[in-house]
């Protein structure tokens, strides 16, 4: 009887809290969209004038030497692509393999050591990795592969793979871990081997989480600047041949980082650098849209099969 009026008094307070909290949460949900939108608007405002100031044929030419007015962005785009693709070629198989090992095969004690170690690797500042890359990795690559110089796209790819790996492993492992135990037991009961269970049942069931892991890994790789700038040599060479992977390359991020600090605000060079930022933004957007499209299609197919 006594408790009743008290609860009644608390009621409006709780409603009020409820209203505020739900608004705050809704706001933070929308804020991500607003921020991305504003960033894109800013990039467009600063970057689009480049299309007016530099003829398209020059903008998409193969020579980047901004202090003399050569604004060909193709070497930078191909440079970023070759370094990122190289990094993914290493990081995806290794990352998913490590995640499968940690989640499916490793004994409990090994898992408890491995997972924190991998996450620790993720916390390593990229400058430190870049420094190691410059002092250890690039001389090693030069000698091992008999290259003119070790400061190549490959060195950048390997470092980026190292930077993307922890992200991929950590998220993919969570996804694999979330697959219900009954799936594995069912597969094993049907006579599938351990490998068949992992490859045919667990991994496909965790598909969307694993794909998310890969996407976030690519996102980290393509946006990484410092480590790449230290080991790729930054020569703006058009990277279109297979051999370009063992030649120096200049990425979009390294170009922006190296040149933005000294550029006169409002100059053509400044606008072109923002235009490169825009291209970078659109590439990440395309990667994300493609990934969610794949996940969405697979999810609907899976639902069809189940129903």
């Amino acid at each position, binding site marked *: 009887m006594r408790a009743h009026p008290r609860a009644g008094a608390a009621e409006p307070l709780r409603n009020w809290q409820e209203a505020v909290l739900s608004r705050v949460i809704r706001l933070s949900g929308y804020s991500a969209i607003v921020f991305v939108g504003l960033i894109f608007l800013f990039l467009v405002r600063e970057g689009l004038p480049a299309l007016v100031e530099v003829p398209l044929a020059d903008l998409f030419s193969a*020579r980047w030497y901004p202090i003399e007015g*050569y604004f060909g962005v193709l070497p930078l785009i191909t440079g970023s692509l070759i370094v990122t693709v190289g990094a993914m070629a290493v990081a995806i198989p290794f990352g998913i393999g490590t995640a499968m090992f940690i989640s499916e095969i490793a004994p409990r004690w090994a898992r408890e050591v491995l997972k924190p170690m991998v996450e620790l690797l993720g916390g390593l500042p990229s400058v430190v990795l870049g420094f190691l890359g410059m*002092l250890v990795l690039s001389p090693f690559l030069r000698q091992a592969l008999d290259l*003119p*110089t070790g400061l190549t796209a490959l060195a950048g790819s390997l470092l980026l793979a190292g930077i993307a790996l922890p992200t991929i492993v950590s998220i993919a492992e969570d996804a694999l871990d979330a697959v219900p135990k009954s799936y594995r037991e069912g597969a094993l009961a049907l006579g599938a081997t351990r490998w068949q269970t992992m490859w045919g049942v667990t991994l496909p069931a965790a598909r969307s989480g694993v794909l998310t892991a890969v996407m976030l890994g690519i996102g980290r790789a393509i946006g990484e600047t410092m480590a790449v700038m230290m080991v790729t040599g*930054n*020569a703006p*060479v058009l990277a279109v041949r297979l051999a370009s992977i063992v030649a120096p390359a200049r990425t979009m991020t390294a170009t922006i980082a190296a*040149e933005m600090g000294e550029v006169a605000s409002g100059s053509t060079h400044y606008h072109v650098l923002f235009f490169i930022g825009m291209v970078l933004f659109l590439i990440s957007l395309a990667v994300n849209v493609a990934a969610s499209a794949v996940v969405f299609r697979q999810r609907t197919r899976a639902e069809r099969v189940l129903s």
Partner: protein
Amino acid sequence: MDLSTIIAMMSSPRVLLIAMAILAAGCGPASNAATPPAAAEYIENRGSDTIVNLALAWAERYQQLYPEVRISVSGGGSGVGITALINGTVDLANASRQIKPEEMQEAQARGIQPVEFVIARDAIAVIVHPDNPVGQLTLQQLSDIYSGKINNWREVGGEDRPIVRLSRETNSGTHVYFLETVVRLGRSDSDTLFSADTLLLPSSEGIVYEVRQNPNAIGYDGLGYVPADLRVIAVARDAGGPFVLPSVATVNDQSYPVARDLYIYSAGEPAGAAAAYLAWILSPEAQSIVADLGFVPVAAESPGQAQAD
């Protein structure tokens, strides 16, 4: 390799100096409050980005020695500094080139007679791996190497190895000076460019590390930044000419070809605080800062402007 090396490597000296200059400026009012409010003398100093670090270091030290003097330093380029001098908005203009005749005429038309002081020298050393047998090159050969016409050390008397060209980033003053003086051989009508496969490294240290471990590499850097364990190339102006190694002596007698004077111009004969500051700049103490920052100090026998005040 400890962390401080990494930090030292990554943070450009300019950022540090600006930070220190801000710090020094921030301390200003406090020290003013301590000393009687002396008529603060004010020197406005603007110009070349090549010299801005040096000018900041000088200004900072000078303000420690003479707290009553305020020195404001900014960059922008040699042209910006000289234009400001002509317009009468600065007391001292820093320039990495001599004043042009048309700038001189414009200044005189406004009743200003710029007076030139050589305050330091800047030399660029060309460096290769210590095991590289090539020890001397002409300017023409250097130009051909960096523009991509020569691609193997064999062509300049070395081993059969590919040449890996190293350069600073395009926004570095050293890059632009090397482009004009070496790649284009000082010809203003030339439009020769660095070969596209030239590695553009973000720091002097990056070039030094790569040259130290890669026998294919050739690089360049300010003379003061070159460590002793690398091979420095002797450079000749012409094929027949003497091959000269860069040093304080050869830079000061102008026999080393990849060197230039750095200037401060004052509007008319300097007077008051500016004159005292210029005299201090040419003193041994200020010139030791020159050496610390990788430039070449001017030799003591250079024109007796030190007695300007």
